């Protein structure tokens, strides 16, 4: 089942075309990694898909009312903004806002899933960056939407937290959710995503399994780099090595 369907999506910001002609479907049980160099428009693509910025073409989510959309997709912007010193459990409970209920079960489940039991009474503004990221992800989980979209969810996290975060997305997909992430860490993307979408030069350059997208040719064209890659029993390993000449 398609949870997000983009047709010929195009975004122009301040007179500059960021990208155009993006056609993409996200299904249940997928973890899709959106990769591409800085300025390729990964964030704009996700915000346009959500209907948060004007765009050309079609997005299945942008056509919904804001209330319907909030029940169809949970969105985690890159900026981990927490304006007030709210308790962690109150922060997670904000995920129930679109449902207009205070159902404790999804909030408790999200707190448990993100290992926040010991932090629940703490002020979220006093947490470390990694703990805040976990609390904000728990908020998105409490929203109980079929699709989860996150912009750079692993940015600024240490390796253990990066892996733990990616494993949460994997577990969500296994439960039947769909996940769309923008990622800068190609190694992490290769290891944990079921599918990668490469955005570069205002075009969708490639869309497929990690080993289909992370080819020497596409890496050179998309990122301007060469990479070391190998197959291991645990899956593919990618390590960017040099700038392509």
């Amino acid at each position, binding site marked *: 089942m398609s949870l997000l369907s983009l047709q010929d999506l195009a975004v122009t910001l301040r007179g500059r075309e960021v990208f155009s002609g993006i056609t993409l479907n996200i299904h249940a049980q997928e973890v899709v990694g959106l990769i591409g160099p800085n300025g390729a428009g990964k964030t704009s693509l996700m*915000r346009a898909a*959500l209907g*948060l910025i004007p765009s050309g073409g079609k997005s299945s989510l942008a056509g919904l009312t*804001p*209330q319907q*959309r*909030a029940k169809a*997709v*949970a*969105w*985690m*912007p890159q*900026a981990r*903004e*927490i*304006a*007030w*010193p*709210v*308790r962690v459990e*109150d*922060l997670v409970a*904000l995920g129930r*806002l*679109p449902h207009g209920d205070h159902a404790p079960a999804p909030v408790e489940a999200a707190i448990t899933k993100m290992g926040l039991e010991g932090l629940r009474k703490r*002020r979220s503004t006093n947490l470390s960056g990694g703990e805040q990221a976990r609390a*904000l992800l728990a*908020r998105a989980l409490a*929203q109980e939407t079929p699709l989860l979209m996150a912009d750079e969810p692993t940015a600024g996290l240490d390796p253990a937290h990066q892996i733990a975060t990616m494993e949460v997305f994997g577990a969500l997909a296994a439960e039947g959710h769909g996940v769309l992430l923008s990622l800068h860490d190609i190694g992490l993307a290769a290891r944990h995503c079921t599918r990668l979408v490469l955005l570069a030069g205002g075009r969708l350059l490639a869309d497929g399994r990690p080993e289909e997208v992370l080819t020497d040719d596409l890496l050179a064209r998309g990122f301007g780099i060469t990479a070391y890659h190998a197959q291991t029993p645990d899956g593919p390993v990618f390590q960017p090595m040099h700038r392509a000449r």
Partner: protein
Amino acid sequence: MTRALALLLPLVLVLAALSLSLGPADVTLPESLRALFLGGDGPLPMVMREIRLPRVLLALMIGGTLGLAGAAMQGYLRNPLAEPGLLGVSASAALGAVLAIQTGLSAAFAMALPLSALAGAVVAVLILVVLAGPRAETLTLILAGVALSAVAGALTQLVLNLSPNPFAASEIVFWMMGSLADRSVLHVWLALPFMALGVLLLAGVGRGLDALTLGEDAAASMGIDLSRLRLRVVLGTACVVGAGTAVAGAIGFVGLVVPHLLRGSVGGRPGPLLWVSAAGGAAMLLAADIAVRVVAPDRDLKLGVLTALVGAPFFLHLVWRSRGERA
């Protein structure tokens, strides 16, 4: 109901009763309440109903709405330094009032001053809505408010500068200090519809403010219509601040300090803070209005002077504390 609200509401009632019993006519609290509700012979029922009751009602209404609007502004702008006066509406209302004094209109009929102040507030709101319309960013709204405040402030200074005699100038200066003395039931009726509309608008913003804790993008993705939220906050704040300034002059620091003081009691959540802050604002203004009468009964100490006198050091304390947190 939160615990803070359960504590504040009785406090407001006690302060209101205390304020009712306070005045040059020396009567006990039971006597004054009996005269207020049951009437009777002599001048006391009239004193209660025409002089003391309007004063208490205005303190309740203005303090409560300033607390509410302050919490709404801080929640919307996600900034603990925001306050209702930031929009420039109070400065514009003051300009309207000052013009009424200067032109002699206020001497011609009593309600000219508050009406003229309300007109100033309405003009300010129109300018604000045009400048910071549905597509504008939050920063535009703040800048528009700052610009409006500056223009209204400069024009007020100009009126003072050009005032024909020192009496007009001193009347203007004293009015601008803010006071609830000698207000009538008519003032209550004048402010009430605007305040009711403002409270109605601000009553619906709690959910949106809670969502905004996570930033504008996250809030929008959770189904919050941000431009509608902004319109409600701006218009609601403008209504209550415009009406409050029109009938009582400029009363500062309540809308800034009260939300700060009570934020901890609701676990930092901006939605529940709205009502707690409203109760806190009412309590603070009632207490301040009692204080001006008790501290200097025959010196006509102005309410706005006292709230600023108490508020500013408190503000310094906040600055001091936040400096410690950052270190």
